[in-house]
């Protein structure tokens, strides 16, 4: 029997050769407990109803599907539709997953949640749901990222979270993830680890994808309502890859729809200063799963670069690794400069300030649209809003507040 892309992972958490459970023995029991609890929750109508309820009344779903008419007109080709995840509570898609995992934590009687964060968006979303559910919250964040993202650090503290600076390694997202894993292994009885992306050991890549798939399911309905058909291509940025899996997954079975993941090419792939794991990496094992990684010839993980902190990660979710190899999805790169240009274009032409992460997807749509007919449709996941990035953009433009 043929294995379909949309049937994965298998029972042991593998997407072809990727995914799996590559953790120390000390974490195995916790992952077993999580896998069983999630499987039970998925079959529980009350859990699903609560998730649905909070997405609607707390997050503000469904998020709109918006035809960027003026921008499409300027580009002179395909019509671009934006899935407005930037309009969610806390300003990004991250909250969808955090609601799901917090509900699961409550079901598992874990009064304490922990998270890793890079730019701070997942940390803010986790601190938000922890406040909402009355849970203790500890967020691990690289010391270097804390310096770069002071406003988000303060947001987390306002929401009652403890933010722990991580001084080890490169002092960025991957090191925060290492530290969160260490916390979890030490306090596994009372602690739930809310991973923010479709990476980590099974069942996280599957579970986070499932919680984020609400994005793609809404798109299928909204595209039908607004256009009477599905798009020719779906475009999303990929760091760890949760917003992309969320919008791709419901489309995997729709063979006529191209799926395009856009990685951070930083200062250009040739410069070596980028975060394009699928484009320029090799398969390896990190953070509990096998996937494409940016590593040196000795298998050490290398430091990455992107103007967008949310894409600045040396790995990628294992399902993306599988979709790349199977050919079901394409992965391309967009540089810092191209992403910045798309950021400014969307501000000026549509009155929408996108996150720098999402600006990578927008930039690729802007590159692709002119080559397509005017009745072609591109669906772009506008995964977050750009207020958090104003300092970065101002810096690049030589402006100081």
């Amino acid at each position, binding site marked *: 029997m043929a294995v379909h892309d949309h049937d994965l992972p298998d029972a*042991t958490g593998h997407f072809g050769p990727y995914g*799996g*459970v*590559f*953790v*120390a*023995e*000390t974490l*195995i*029991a*916790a992952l077993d407990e999580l896998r069983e609890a999630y499987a039970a929750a998925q079959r529980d109508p009350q859990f699903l109803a609560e998730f649905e309820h909070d997405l609607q009344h707390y997050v503000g779903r469904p998020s709109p599907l918006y035809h960027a008419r003026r921008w499409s007109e300027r580009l002179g080709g395909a019509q671009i539709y934006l899935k407005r995840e930037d309009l969610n509570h806390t300003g990004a898609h991250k909250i969808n997953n955090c609601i799901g995992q917090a509900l699961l934590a409550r079901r598992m009687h874990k009064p304490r949640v922990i998270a890793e964060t890079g730019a701070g968006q997942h940390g803010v979303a986790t601190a938000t749901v922890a406040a909402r559910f009355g849970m203790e919250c500890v967020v691990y964040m690289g010391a270097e990222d804390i310096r770069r993202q002071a406003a988000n650090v303060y947001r987390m503290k306002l929401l009652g979270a403890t933010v722990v600076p991580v001084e*080890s*390694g490169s002092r960025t997202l*991957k*090191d925060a993830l*290492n530290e969160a*894993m*260490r916390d979890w*292994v*030490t*306090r*596994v009885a009372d602690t739930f680890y809310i991973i923010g992306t479709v990476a980590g050991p099974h069942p996280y890549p599957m579970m986070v994808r499932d919680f984020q798939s609400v994005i793609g399911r809404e798109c299928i309905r909204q595209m039908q309502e607004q256009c009477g058909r599905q798009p020719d291509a779906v475009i999303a940025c990929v760091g760890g890859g949760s917003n992309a899996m969320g919008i791709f997954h419901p489309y995997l079975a729709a063979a006529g729809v191209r799926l395009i993941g856009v990685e951070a090419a930083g200062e250009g792939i040739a410069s070596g200063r980028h975060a394009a794991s699928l484009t320029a990496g*090799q*398969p*390896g*094992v*990190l*953070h*509990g799963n096998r996937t494409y*990684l940016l*590593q040196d*010839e*000795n*298998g*050490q*993980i*290398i430091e990455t670069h992107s103007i967008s902190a949310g894409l600045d990660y040396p790995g990628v979710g294992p399902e993306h690794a599988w979709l790349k190899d199977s050919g079901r999805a394409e992965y391309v790169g967009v540089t810092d400069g191209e992403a910045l240009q798309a950021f400014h274009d969307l501000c000026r032409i549509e009155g929408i300030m996108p996150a720098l992460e999402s600006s990578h997807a927008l930039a690729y749509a802007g590159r692709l649209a002119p080559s397509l007919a005017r009745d072609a449709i591109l669906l772009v996941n506008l995964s977050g809003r750009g207020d958090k990035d104003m300092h970065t953009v101002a810096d690049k433009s030589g402006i100081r507040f």
Partner: protein
Amino acid sequence: MGRIQQVFARLQGEGRKALIPFITAGDPDPGLTVPLLRTLVRAGADVIELGVPFSDPMADGPTIQRASERALAKGVSLRQVLSLVATFRDEDRTTPIVLMGYANPIEAMGVGAFAAAAAAAGVDGVLVVDYPPEESADFAAALQRHAIDPIFLLAPTSSDARIAEVGALASGYIYYVSLKGVTGSATLDVAAVAARIPEIRARTGVPVGVGFGIRDAATAAAVARIADAVVVGSRLIEEIERSAAATACDNVLNLLSGIRQAIDAAAPATGEP
């Protein structure tokens, strides 16, 4: 019979327990690694665990992570670790060396190529922290083709079914992680550990070493009464960290000799071999 089996057989005959020190290869400098290995033998090490530095040592505490960072700053690679083992092996044909590290440097080299190179260098066992048994059947088979023992971790949270699963793949010895946490954590509950050792030994049929949280001679002695081997890691690395290069070997010799004496002085518990 491999070197690891020979060691445990000999110790059993003598009614003694194994001392297994851990250091990170290349820390603080690759030039000091072979002298440190020889020092560990002089201090009474029966088996040596040699850490392979990795950029993201998720299961280790800050002490071993710093050791990894110091070694990586000196450019130490898995290939160089193997060549350090080969240099040590030229002079010492009896002390088993177990490499301990993470999957990615091994996968970057290639599992088959690594197993062959490790055997040629004189490695006796390999413990890959992030290869639990369900992900390592092929790896364990590759090691055993080269007569290298795959060493596995077990934890206080491991179920009976898992203990049996590990037992089916493991040879050499089992490394029992004595507490919930990372390497270098502070406390160890000897009574809780004592309760688990007999069932692990019975289900796996290989000797059981205990590590994580053994920081002094008294704890080492207490563990020696209940387990087949005592693993000491972070405490040694702290000693190396705070020593000047010229005195590191002397300081490690003093520290580990004290632990050795305490282990030998500890009377085996009743019913133990």
